[in-house]
């Protein structure tokens, strides 16, 4: 027997509570708003924060795209998509520009987002100070007092140990010059996309029960020392072996048999788009 679920899985009371938390998060950019994280049909730590945000903001006219580390077709992305689709019947897409809501795990799409879109990021550890302070009431106080020497100290330690800041993802950012925020484990490559972003960025941590946000056109500055400026991952000299794109985030792929290395777009829908465009041009030129 299959029960008839409510629109978007949640009862209206739950949506109301989560929307209220979102409103507060948007009003205080970068501030982590606690919320009553619901029990979801997927396990905590598998995107429940993002899923709850998506379900509470989605409407019948929305078009949803879900990505997992840049891929539209990985298991987690597909499961989340299916769940939302089954309970809302909204249109699904893989095309970034067509989506109105994009739920993403650890990537911001390569195609620039617009003011009509909302990106929802899944967050495992929302607290940038957790590495230096375990107690929540202390980190809360540190945030309120603008005491971020702990975050700086972590970066300093990395420079001492490795000669550079060694955050491969989740490099802390200053939001609107006030709160230091964990941008979720997006690569440093994506940090700059948050700065003055046209789209609303919502971040949800289901296990840690926190919601926070970067409203459109907000300053987002990656933390960096004067003599060690912030740098993003460099793919100089590499291009996608499928579509030939450069200046995007590439995955390194190693052939198990030959041990040969090649690079490929991490954002699969972007790659597909490039290939389609190429094909179109080829078809047009061959007919002409």
């Amino acid at each position, binding site marked *: 027997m299959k029960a008839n679920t409510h629109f978007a899985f949640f009862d209206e009371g739950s949506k109301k509570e989560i929307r209220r938390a979102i409103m507060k998060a948007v009003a205080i950019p970068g501030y982590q708003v606690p919320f009553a994280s619901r029990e979801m049909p997927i396990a905590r730590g598998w995107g429940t924060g993002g899923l709850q945000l998506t379900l509470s903001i989605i409407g019948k006219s929305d078009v949803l795209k879900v990505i997992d580390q840049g891929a539209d077709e990985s298991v987690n992305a597909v499961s989340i998509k299916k769940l939302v689709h089954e309970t809302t019947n909204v249109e699904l897409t893989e095309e970034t520009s067509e989506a109105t809501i994009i739920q993403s795990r650890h990537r911001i799409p390569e195609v620039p987002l617009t003011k009509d879109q909302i990106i929802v990021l899944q967050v495992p550890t929302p607290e940038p100070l957790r590495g230096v302070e375990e107690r929540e009431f202390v980190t809360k106080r540190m945030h309120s*007092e603008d005491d971020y020497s702990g975050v700086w*100290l972590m970066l*300093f*330690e990395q*420079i*001492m*140990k490795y000669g550079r800041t060694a955050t491969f993802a989740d490099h802390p950012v200053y939001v609107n010059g006030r709160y230091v925020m964990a941008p979720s484990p997006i690569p440093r490559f994506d940090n700059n996309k948050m700065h003055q972003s046209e789209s609303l960025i919502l971040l949800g941590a289901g296990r840690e029960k926190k919601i926070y946000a970067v409203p459109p056109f907000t300053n987002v500055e990656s933390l960096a*020392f*004067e003599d060690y400026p912030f740098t993003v991952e460099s793919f100089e000299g590499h291009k996608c072996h499928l579509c030939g794109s450069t200046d995007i985030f590439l995955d390194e792929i190693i052939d198990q048999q030959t041990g040969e290395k090649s690079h490929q777009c991490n954002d699969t829908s972007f790659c597909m788009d490039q290939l389609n465009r190429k094909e179109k041009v080829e078809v047009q030129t061959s007919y002409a």
Partner: protein
Amino acid sequence: MHEKPILQVRNLRKQFGTGCKDCSELMNRNLEKNFCKSCGTVYACQDISFDLYPGEILGIVGESGSGKSTMMQCLYFDADVTSGEAYISDSILAGQNVFGLSSQQKRSIRNHVYGMVYQNPVHGLKMNFSSVGNIAEKLIAAGNRNVANMEATSKKLLNNVHIPLHRMKEEPRNFSGGMQQRVQIAKALSNNPPILFLDEVTTGLDLSVQANVLDLIKKIQRDLGISMIVVSHDLGVIRMLADRTIVLLNGKVIEEGLTDQVLEDPQHEYTQQLVYSLL
């Protein structure tokens, strides 16, 4: 004395508990030591007042439980005072009771004006961060954002406290107690604080290391002219370091004066007992 004190403490009080009719009257408290038997309130510090002058070392002695450490914690804002005032002679802070400031302002004082060396290095250091990182923490807190600059300062300080530089990137948890204590001193000195608090710094160290640390403190005071408050129950330490000494008993100042005077010619019964029980 024509000099102006750098730190003035007036009527510092710290009590644990609400007090009752037996113990709340200031002049006539019915206490056993510092403890009220009817309500269980502990009066850790009762009306402690003193001045600290620029460049001097002020010794605080007293038996355990006499309120020395509580007083230090209050001065360093680790604990809130019940009542009392403290004034720092500083162009910005002049005339303001520092106990009444906001926690941000207190943190700024801790980062710019104060240095603290705890009895237990666990409280003063982050044991799983490198030694150089520990020193940089204080510099970062004070607004420094230049890595090369902070590294150079940390190296200089570690060198001053005789920590071999090839171990500077090691975590203090790998160090011996004496080394940890010296890293703590280096950290406390990193912002050239005009006031340094030392809480039982040599307790638990063996004699040769004790002598090393004491030498270091004396040298720092001579070279940098930092004012210090040294808390110890060890009269030997006080005799060697302190210019003036305050004797605490049950949270009250019972005697104060030049260290030699207090130790050679103690007036109060308890001080006499303390001095003569010196081995």
